[in-house]
C-alpha cells in the first residue's frame, strides 16, 4: 500500500508518513497517531527487564523491528496483535529460546536486572532458570507429577536432600493451585491429567526453580473456559511474586489479567500503555482498529 505522504483515503490511513491525521468521519472524532513509531509509555520505573532497539532476523527476513520496552516488577505485561506480528518471537527472545532456531539472529540489548542476557559471558542455563516459560500447549514430561515439578530443582541442584525437594514440589504445586487436586497421586504420570491441570502443572514446574520473570505464550489457547478462568486467577496471584509477560489472542484475557498491554503489528511495537487506557482510549489508529475488531 504505497500512498504519497499527504494524500489520505479514508479507508486506507497512511502507514508510512508518521503524520497525525484528523478523521472526517463522525465515528472517529478523535485524533490518532498512525505511524510505526511506538506510542504510549513503553518504559517504567525500576524495570525488571529492559529491551532496547531489539531486532530479530530469521535469515534475511526481519521479524522484529527496533523494539524498546520495559517489563516492570510484579506486573503482568500482555502482548497482543494479529498472527505473525512477532509477539511470540519477541517473547522467546526474553529467555533466549530462539537460540534453538539456527537461522535466528538477535540485535540490540535485552537486560535482566541490568545484565545483558545476550552478552557472550552470559550462560543460557542460569538465565532460563531466572526467566521461566509456559507454552501454548501443555507439555508435561511423560514422568510422574512429582518428577515433573522436581525436574528443574534437580538439574540446578537447588536442594540438599529429599525433604527440601518435597517442600519445593509442594509449595510450587500450592502456588499453581494444583496441590489439592493431585496431592494423593503425585507419583502418577503428569500426562494423565486434564488439559487445564496439565497447564497448571507446567506453571508449577516453571515456578519450582523460583524464576524472576515468567513468560507465557498463549497459555490458555488450548484450554476450555473453566480451565482458562483458573489459569487467569493463578496469573493474578503469581503477580505478587513474579513479573509475567503473556502473549494472548484473547483481548478480554489481556484486559482481565494484565496491568500493561503492548500492541504489536507486523514486527513493530505500535502502542504500549496501561491496560485500561489501551482498551478504553487507544492513541494509535492500528490499535483502535485491532481492539475494535476491524481487522486481525
Amino acid at each position: 500500500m504505497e500512498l504519497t505522504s499527504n494524500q489520505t483515503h479514508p479507508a486506507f490511513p497512511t502507514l508510512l508518513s508518521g503524520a497525525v491525521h484528523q478523521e472526517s468521519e463522525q465515528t472517529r472524532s478523535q485524533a490518532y497517531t498512525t505511524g510505526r513509531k511506538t506510542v504510549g509509555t513503553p518504559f517504567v520505573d525500576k524495570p525488571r527487564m529492559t529491551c532496547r532497539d531489539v531486532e530479530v532476523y530469521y535469515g534475511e527476513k526481519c521479524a522484529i523491528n527496533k523494539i524498546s520496552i520495559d517489563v516492570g516488577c510484579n506486573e503482568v505485561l500482555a502482548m497482543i496483535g494479529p498472527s505473525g506480528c512477532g509477539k511470540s518471537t519477541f517473547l522467546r527472545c526474553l529467555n533466549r529460546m530462539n537460540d534453538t532456531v539456527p537461522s535466528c539472529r538477535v540485535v540490540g540489548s535485552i537486560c535482566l536486572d541490568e545484565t545483558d542476557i545476550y552478552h557472550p559471558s552470559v550462560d543460557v542455563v542460569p538465565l532460563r532458570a531466572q526467566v521461566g516459560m509456559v507454552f501454548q500447549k501443555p507439555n508435561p514430561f511423560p514422568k510422574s507429577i512429582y518428577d515433573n515439578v522436581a525436574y528443574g530443582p534437580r538439574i540446578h541442584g537447588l536442594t540438599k536432600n529429599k525433604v527440601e525437594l518435597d517442600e519445593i514440589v509442594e509449595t510450587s504445586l500450592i502456588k499453581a493451585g494444583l496441590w489439592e487436586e493431585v496431592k494423593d497421586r503425585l507419583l502418577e504420570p503428569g500426562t494423565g491429567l486434564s488439559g487445564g491441570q496439565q497447564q497448571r502443572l507446567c506453571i508449577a514446574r516453571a515456578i519450582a526453580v523460583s524464576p524472576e520473570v515468567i513468560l507465557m505464550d498463549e497459555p490458555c489457547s488450548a484450554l476450555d473456559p473453566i480451565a482458562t478462568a483458573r489459569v487467569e486467577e493463578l496469573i493474578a496471584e503469581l503477580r505478587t511474586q513474579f513479573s509475567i509477560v503473556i502473549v494472548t489472542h484473547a483481548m478480554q484475557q489481556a484486559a482481565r489479567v494484565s496491568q500493561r498491554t503492548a500492541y504489536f503489528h507486523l514486527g513493530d511495537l505500535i502502542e504500549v500503555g496501561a491496560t485500561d487506557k489501551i482498551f478504553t482510549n487507544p492513541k494509535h489508529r492500528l490499535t483502535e482498529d485491532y481492539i475494535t475488531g476491524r481487522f486481525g
Partner: protein
Amino acid sequence: MYTYLLLCILLITTGAYFGGKARAKTIAEASGGMRTLHSLPSHYGMLTALSYAIPALLVFALWRIFEGTIVTSLVTKSLPIELQQLSPNRLSLVLNEVRNIVFSGFASHNADPAIQAAADLYLSTMNWLKNAVAVSTLLGGLIPGAIAYRSIRKELRARNLVEGIGKVILIGCSAVAIFTTLGIVFSVLFESLRFFHAIPFFDFLFGLQWSPQTAMRVDQAGSSGAFGAVPVFAGTILIALIAMLVAIPVGLLAAIYLSEYAGSRMRTWAKPMLEILAGIPTVVYGFFAALTVAPLIRDIGQAIGLQVASESALAAGLVMGIMIIPFVSSLSDDVIHAVPQAMRDGSFALGATRFETIRLVIIPAALPGIVGSILLAVSRAIGETMIVVMAAGLSADLTFNPLKAVTTVTVQIVTLLVGDQEFDSPKTLAAFALGLLLFVFTLFLNFIALRVVRKYREQYE
C-alpha cells in the same frame, strides 16, 4: 504353450473393459448425460473385464490342477491288466517311463510295445486336452462377461461391485501371507513331533550333550547320538549377547547423535550410510569374520598370552554386532526423532542443557521404542545364520567363555541338513525341532517387542 492362451485372456479382458465403458457411455448419453449413471464409465468397464477374467482364470486354474490326474488315470486304464495290478510304487515307475517317452522322444525304439502304446495315448490325450483347456477357458469367461455386459444399466451399482471385488483380492493377498506362515509352522511342528517320538521332549530341551552323529546302518560304527539342546542354545545366546554388547551402545549413541546433535544435512547423509551396513550381504560379513576378525583376535590373544580359538565366539559376535548396528540406530533414531519438540522446549525453558534434556527427558520418553528396536535386533541376531556358519565353530561345548569356539542353533540346522541324509532319522528331524524352538523363541521376543512398541504409541495420543 499356454502363454498364447493367457495372452488371449488378457486381450479379451482389455476388450471387455473398453466395451463395457463404451456401452456405459452410450447408455448415459441416451438417458441424458453422465450424471444419470450410478458409477463412472470406467467402473462399468472394469466390472465387465473382471466378469470375464476371473471366471476364465478360475477355469484355467482348475484345468491345470486336475490335468495331470485326468491324463494319468486315462493312461493307466489303457495299460495291460498285469501292469495295472502292480504295486503303486512300481506303477509310478511305469508311468514315469511313459512320460519320458512322451517328453523326450527318447528310448522309443526299444520300449515295451504296451508302454509305447500308452505313450501314444498319453500324447494324444494331452493334445485334445490342450484344446479343451483353451476352448473352455475362453468360453468359461465369455458367458459371465456377456451377462455383465448385457446387464449394464444406469442403475447398476458397478462401483460398489468393483470395489467389493477389489476388497476380496486384498483379502486374498493377506491370506496368502498368513497361510504361508501357518503352513511353515505346521510343517515344522509335525516334523518336530516325529522327532519327539524318537527323543523325549525334555531330554531335548534340558539335555546338556549335543552330538547328533548316529549310525545310519546297523553294522556301522557310530555314536548313539545325544540331542540335548542346551549347549546349542547357550552358544546362540552367547554370540547374540556379544553382538548386542556391540550393537546397543554403538547403535544407540549413533542414534542420539543423529537425531539430537547432527544437522539436517548431516542426518540425511549419515543415516542412509548407516543403513547401507544393513544392506551388506551376510555372507560378506561371514568371510570378513572368518578371514579378518577371527585371526586378528587370535593374534591379539596370543600376544597377551591368552588361548583364543581360531573360530571364537567373540569374532562371530563382534561382526554380528556390527551387522545389526543399523537396526538399533535407525529404529531408535526414528523413535527419538518422534519425541515431540514440545518436550525439548519444556526442558530447555527450565534451563536444562542439551545433554540433560537427552538423558532425563528424551531417552525416558523414547525408551519403550528403543527397547522395541533392541528386541527386534536381538531376534535378528539369534536367527542370523551365515556369519556363524562361517565364523563360529561346530563343537557344541557348554561354555560361556567368548574366546572358545561355540556353535549355534542355526549352524547346527545347516550341518544337520547338508549332505547325504535319511530324512526320517532323528538326526535330520532334530533340525526341525531346533527350528521350532528357535521360532518359538524369536516369536516370543517379537511379541514382546510389538507390545512395547504399542505401549509407546499410546503415550502421546
